[in-house]
């Protein structure tokens, strides 16, 4: 499989509909401090089913919804969609092209969709569970993980090994 693009609207610092196209090879994301680069990574984690708010730098899941600025009002919903090319069939789905979407409303209601068909969160995490692409795998690496993997506490390290097994 390979990723085609990521679409965000109302997610963290992306109030307006934004697209991020994935290419083959190495893509680098640059920009000033605080401009939203790590937020893109959070969006990817989130649409893959991440439930641990700590990994999204929050305490409540509601915090991923655009909270407004001095001049803009907060929004009522966050939505992220991930388009995937699955022609090699590496994801357990009959579809050659997949769009996984996740929505969260301020009311706390969530919606999950695969190719526009509503589903459960579990259906999304199951889809990625074995491909090494879960919201939990070593496919997403941040600075804190680098320290955690070497720390005296064994859990993070053990968890990564279990993911690779």
């Amino acid at each position: 499989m390979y990723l085609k693009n990521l679409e965000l609207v109302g997610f963290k610092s992306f109030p307006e509909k934004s697209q991020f196209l994935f290419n083959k090879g190495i893509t680098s994301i640059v920009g000033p401090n605080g401009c939203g680069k790590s937020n893109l990574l959070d969006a990817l984690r989130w649409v893959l089913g991440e439930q641990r708010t700590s990994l999204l730098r929050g305490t409540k899941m509601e915090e991923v919804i655009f909270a407004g600025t001095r001049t803009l009002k907060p929004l009522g919903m966050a939505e992220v969609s991930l388009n995937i090319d699955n022609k090699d069939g590496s994801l357990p789905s009959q579809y050659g092209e997949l769009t996984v979407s996740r929505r969260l409303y301020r009311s706390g209601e969530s919606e999950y969709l695969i190719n526009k068909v509503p589903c459960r969160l579990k259906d999304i995490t199951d889809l990625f569970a074995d491909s090494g692409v879960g919201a939990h795998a070593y496919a997403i690496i941040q600075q804190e993980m680098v320290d955690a993997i070497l720390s005296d506490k064994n859990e993070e390290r053990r968890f990564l090994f279990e993911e690779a097994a």
Partner: protein
Amino acid sequence: AKAMFLETINKARDNFKQMYQELFTGGEADIILEDESDPLESRIEIVSRPRGKKPLTITQLSGGERALTAISLLFALYMVKPSPFCFLDEIDAPLDDVNVGRFLKIVRTFARQTQFVIITHNKITMEAADTLYGVTMEEPGVSKVVAVRFKKEAETDDTILDLHY
């Protein structure tokens, strides 16, 4: 499960030693199960000895040496079970220029089968990318994704600097 985990540890160990040699150009590395008879619960110990040195523990290594050790280990696990994509957030920050170069050399080989997305402030990493995206915040608190360069055409450092204001 026990046999599978042991097999993962063994493969990871071989990969770790290989990755370590490529990143540290020497020295010794190992993954040791504290309790061989109980792999599923045992502590996993990481040995990292840069060339010529004999550090007693991982805590005595420098910031860059620790980062490079963790990167060797993460790449080692990735080799056991490659993920279709890999998203790295500023993990090159503690590395000196030569080590960034070695890190990117490995990323380039893996990038043939894996989509790499690297968030960075490092000019060498930006240069090595096939595709460069900028994230900007012209309107305070509102992020926008901007394509800066596709497949290494035309762009210069000035374009990147324009993202800062």
